[in-house]
């Protein structure tokens, strides 16, 4: 074991011996350091500022860095650095540009990490079986990861700021938090607990990033807080226990969420503190699995401007609060009584703006912001014709929206892709929809009616009202896709136009088509996608589904019974699944209808026909492997077909 001193100013820390001396300020020619050697940068390393660039995976036992006689030493480079002892950085005289990965690999205890306020920029990994490290000062290494793989890491009670703290694997390791305040810009990730000894102490863990996770692995924590102000998006994993869990510091008009993948226990208080912008600055407390409730057991709650979805309140707490929105699937939480509010603000505005009043001509107040259980009405009062309401914040929980009285032009620009709707949505003919956002209907009871008043949709619309119904109040036409993943969608026999339609999942859902004509304008393998039809009740009525794209498209029927299917576009139509139809028709020629090989399609009528010079090709998807076409009795009479690989019976 030796101690080497850096000498000679600027240079590279590599396999050479030029800059290493066996004495402070001595002659070079020693080293290079091994994992058993300590290295020191001191005031005699150079008279003035200099730069040490770490190259070729340097190693050492302990490292001590102080500045030169004047100026700073700059630690530079990106090479991985293995340290088998302690790290001590002086409070001054150091400039750090180095960003390489640092691994503390000692296999004995008693080592310290003392950074004295130096801001680091490297991922730190503690990976030494039997090793032990304790912070000797506050630690600030933002936007990086502190990984514990093996050995013991103790915060020493100092504050610790980094991006993510993570531990994984099964090696023997311990994580001791003491009384530290730990601030994470990204995540707390306890990925495995095998071999882990966790000592939470009286610590506080704050997540202050815009998004991240708290993967707690079911351990017990003291205080955990979410402190990002502008709509934090936090996922909580593990069935954890907290002394207190809080969401504080909200500002602005952003909407955030805390998504729970397991039940949580809070032995103290669950706090969702009031934001600086009341009403529209909201937090959605939700289950990570839509429709699967999570229980929060709390001794006390303090809740303001929060929405809940699939949450069961439990414990000694009285689950009530101020401006609590019911996004469905909740129990034992007292929500605000439904109210009706009116937009009364001039000009183009955001939905979350201070534009809601209790009467059509009343003065808006932020506290009137409509919650999921409310009704929001637009009249001709304000804004004047030509204005736009921007629905551009994710996780807005739209209430019942009624624009029936609106005769002056008004545009709803929906650009956010996570807009949740909980009631009827009634447009007027004076309105316009724009934007490529997405709306998901999530009402959990009753019937929500979509009335378009002849206005075309441009958004993605998904229907997922578990145990409830979404129905049409008139014809629905969208240039975007549509899906049904839960609940009942009833067209009420109104026509539907959309680019693609999907109901491929295993949830309980009903699709009632009535006498509607569905026009599917999109192409591709998911143009009509019911390929996974488990849980799907399909009431075909006397409907017609027309696939009109001029490019190839697939009708993945999911082995269900339909009424009429029409090949309405020049692009080849592939029919997959073994389905039953009343009739199969075409309204264009020439074109192609391809049946997935080895499937069986059953028809009451079969009316594919070409015309002279424009044959309709019907075939199977794999050349040489037939598909089966079955009609029970009678004749099939076609003409001008080009037939291949089809067994008719």
């Amino acid at each position, binding site marked *: 074991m030796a101690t080497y001193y850096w000498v000679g100013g600027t240079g590279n820390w590599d396999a050479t011996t030029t800059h290493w001396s066996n004495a402070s300020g001595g002659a070079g020619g020693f080293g290079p350091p091994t994992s058993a050697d300590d290295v020191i940068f001191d005031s005699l390393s150079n008279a003035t500022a200099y730069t040490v660039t770490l190259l070729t995976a340097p190693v050492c036992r302990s490292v001590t860095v102080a500045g030169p006689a004047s100026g700073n030493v700059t630690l530079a480079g990106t090479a991985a650095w293995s340290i088998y002892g302690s790290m001590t950085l002086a409070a001054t005289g150091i400039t750090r540009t180095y960003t390489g990965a640092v691994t503390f690999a000692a296999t004995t205890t008693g080592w310290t990490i003392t950074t004295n306020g130096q801001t680091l920029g490297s991922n730190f990994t503690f990976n030494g079986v039997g090793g032990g490290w304790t912070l000797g000062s506050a630690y600030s290494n933002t936007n990086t990861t502190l990984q514990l793989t093996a050995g013991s890491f103790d915060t020493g009670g100092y504050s610790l700021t980094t991006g993510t703290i993570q531990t994984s694997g099964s090696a023997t390791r311990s994580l001791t938090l003491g009384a530290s305040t730990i601030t994470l810009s990204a995540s707390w990730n306890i990925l495995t607990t095998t071999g882990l000894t966790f000592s939470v102490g009286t610590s506080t863990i704050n997540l202050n990033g815009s998004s991240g996770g708290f993967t707690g692995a079911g351990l017990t924590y003291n205080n955990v807080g979410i402190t990002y102000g502008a709509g934090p998006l936090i996922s909580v994993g593990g069935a954890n226990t907290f002394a207190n869990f809080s969401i504080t510091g909200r500002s602005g008009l952003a909407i955030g969420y805390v998504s729970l993948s397991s039940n949580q226990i809070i032995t103290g208080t669950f706090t969702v503190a009031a934001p600086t912008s009341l009403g529209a600055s909201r937090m959605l407390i939700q289950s990570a699995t839509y429709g699967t409730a999570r229980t929060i057991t709390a001794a006390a709650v303090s809740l303001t401007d929060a929405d809940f979805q699939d949450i069961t309140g439990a414990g000694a707490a009285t689950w009530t609060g101020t401006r609590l929105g019911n996004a469905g699937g909740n129990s034992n939480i007292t929500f605000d009584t439904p109210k009706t509010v009116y937009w009364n603000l001039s000009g183009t505005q955001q939905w979350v703006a201070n534009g809601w009043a209790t009467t059509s001509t009343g003065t808006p107040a932020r506290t009137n912001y409509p919650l999921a259980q409310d009704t929001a009405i637009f009249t001709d009062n304000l804004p004047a014709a030509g204005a736009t309401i921007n629905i551009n914040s994710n996780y807005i929980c739209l209430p019942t929206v009624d624009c029936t009285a609106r005769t002056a032009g008004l545009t709803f620009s929906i650009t956010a892709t996570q807009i949740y709707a909980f009631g009827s949505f009634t447009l007027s003919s004076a309105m316009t929809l724009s934007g490529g956002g997405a709306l998901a209907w999530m009402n959990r009871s009753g019937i929500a009616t979509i009335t378009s008043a002849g206005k075309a949709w441009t958004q993605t619309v998904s229907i997922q009202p578990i145990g409830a119904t979404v129905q049409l109040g008139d014809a629905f036409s969208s240039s975007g896709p549509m899906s049904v993943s839960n609940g009942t969608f009833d067209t009420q026999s109104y026509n539907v136009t959309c680019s693609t339609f999907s109901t491929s999942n295993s949830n309980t859902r009903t699709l009632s088509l009535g006498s509607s004509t569905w026009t599917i304008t999109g192409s591709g393998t998911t143009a009509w996608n019911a390929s996974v039809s488990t849980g799907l009740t399909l009431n075909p009525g006397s409907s017609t589904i027309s696939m009109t794209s001029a490019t190839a498209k697939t009708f993945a029927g999911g082995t269900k019974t339909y009424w009429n299917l029409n090949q309405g576009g020049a692009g080849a139509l592939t029919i997959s699944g073994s389905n039953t139809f009343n009739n199969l028709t075409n309204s264009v020629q020439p074109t192609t209808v391809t049946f997935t090989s080895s499937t069986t399609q059953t028809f009451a*009528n079969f009316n594919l026909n070409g015309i002279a010079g424009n044959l309709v090709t019907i075939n199977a998807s794999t050349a040489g492997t037939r598909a089966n076409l*079955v009609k*029970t009795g009678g*004749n099939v*009479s076609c003409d*001008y077909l*080009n*037939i*291949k690989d089809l067994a008719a*019976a």
Partner: protein
Amino acid sequence: MASWYAGNNSTNSGNNTGWIFTVPPGGGTLSLTLEDIAITSSGSLSHNGSASVQLDDISFDGSGTVGHDGTFALLLDDIDVTASGSVQPVIVAEAIGGANPWHERIQKARQITEERIRKAKDKEVADIIQSLLDEGVLPSEVLEQNPDYTQVRKLYAAQLAQIAQNAAIEYERITQEEEVLLMMLID
């Protein structure tokens, strides 16, 4: 199982089973095509109110046996009514089909006869009521309170029924006479 007829103009590209590349027995293409139905007006066309083209009683009359498996569809596509130039509020035309002038004259005669009978019945009823009043049988206040003779009809139902029967006999007689007369005119 059905018989799958691909028609005479279809192509068998191979590896098919169950297809019959002919038309169904006795079959062929059964189609009704109405093309290029146009109403053309040269010069100005005036119309007041909604315009419509009505196609009634389009029927297929097959002599002999007609077999068809499937559905019949009557498709009326792309019917356009286009007016260019000025449109004036004037009724242009009315089409009446199947009118029989003698039938109209008979109807008119019946209307005249029925009016005569009604007047005769009213006169008879008035005469009877007047006679009852003259004899002091019917209080005058009854008439004042029931100018439509409702009360009178209740009190003297038997007499009025006889009057009605007489009127019906008279109606039948006159009708027969009128019809005989009219048939003579037709012949």
